[in-house]
């Protein structure tokens, strides 16, 4: 599998380490509920199809990335810096 790091270019998946689904949002702050944290830590959609997921370019630029990929075919639609995705989510929230 080849992943196109937005900074380093296309690399073998062996350079990256995998975390998982990028959809769950950490319930930050002292007011977060245990239930919400449980769901964040443990529950996954695990789709057979498109998933946005977190990868870390461990052997490269140490960027966290959001990869949009089809779990049935491994076809990759996009790779974005996780920072950009997080930032966009926040501005989406603010708007």
């Amino acid at each position: 599998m080849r992943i196109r790091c937005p900074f380093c270019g296309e690399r073998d998946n062996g350079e990256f380490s995998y975390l998982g689904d990028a959809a769950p949002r950490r319930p930050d702050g002292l007011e977060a509920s245990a239930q919400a944290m449980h769901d964040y830590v443990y529950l996954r959609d695990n789709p057979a199809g498109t998933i946005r997921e977190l990868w870390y370019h461990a052997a490269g630029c140490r960027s966290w990335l959001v990869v949009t990929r089809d779990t049935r075919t491994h076809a990759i639609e996009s790779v974005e810096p996780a920072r950009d995705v997080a930032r966009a989510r926040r501005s989406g929230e603010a708007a």
Partner: protein
Amino acid sequence: MSEPATIQASASLWQPRSAWGGAPRAGRHGAPGQAGIRLTLLEGRGLATLVATEGNEAGLQTVLAERFGLSAPEAGGAAFEGERGLVWSAPGQWLAVAPSPHALRDLPEALRGLAAVTDQSDGRALVRVSGPQARALLAKGVAVDLHPRAFGPGRAAVTSIAHIGVQLWQRDAGPSYDIAVARSFAGSFWAWLEHAAAEFGYEVATVQG
């Protein structure tokens, strides 16, 4: 920043030791015939990581250009003036390279507030790989395409060779490449280099600064 030039060594005990340790043997090795590979150990270089503070990359560029005559290259780039330069390492991060640690001593102060500067002069072992088979040699370990159409002088990559993290940048079209590897891995990295270079025949030399 360490400043070997100004150290008043209290005793002959305080001598720096090469990051390559005792691994490399100078001279001609491997397959006979014309050596396909030249390995030059680069000793005594100054290295530092620059990590830009949030939102200050433009200011950082200005100071680097005005005070040091350096420009911080884009992702995948290496900008050199002679043996001084900056190699892209990660978004907002660069490796500063200089002939000696001394040459980088003013960086932290000059970049205060713009970038966190961390001395790494002792943290890496550096080798220059050149010779007619340099590209073929590196193809044995580097998964990045080093063909002239894809990679040339002024290009850099952070990747791994033989499971060992490396930062490499191309110096000239010869081609020659500089490779930086973490100090504790230097012995194993060298073992791989010898394994990979043996079939081409290789020679080993050292330069200071």
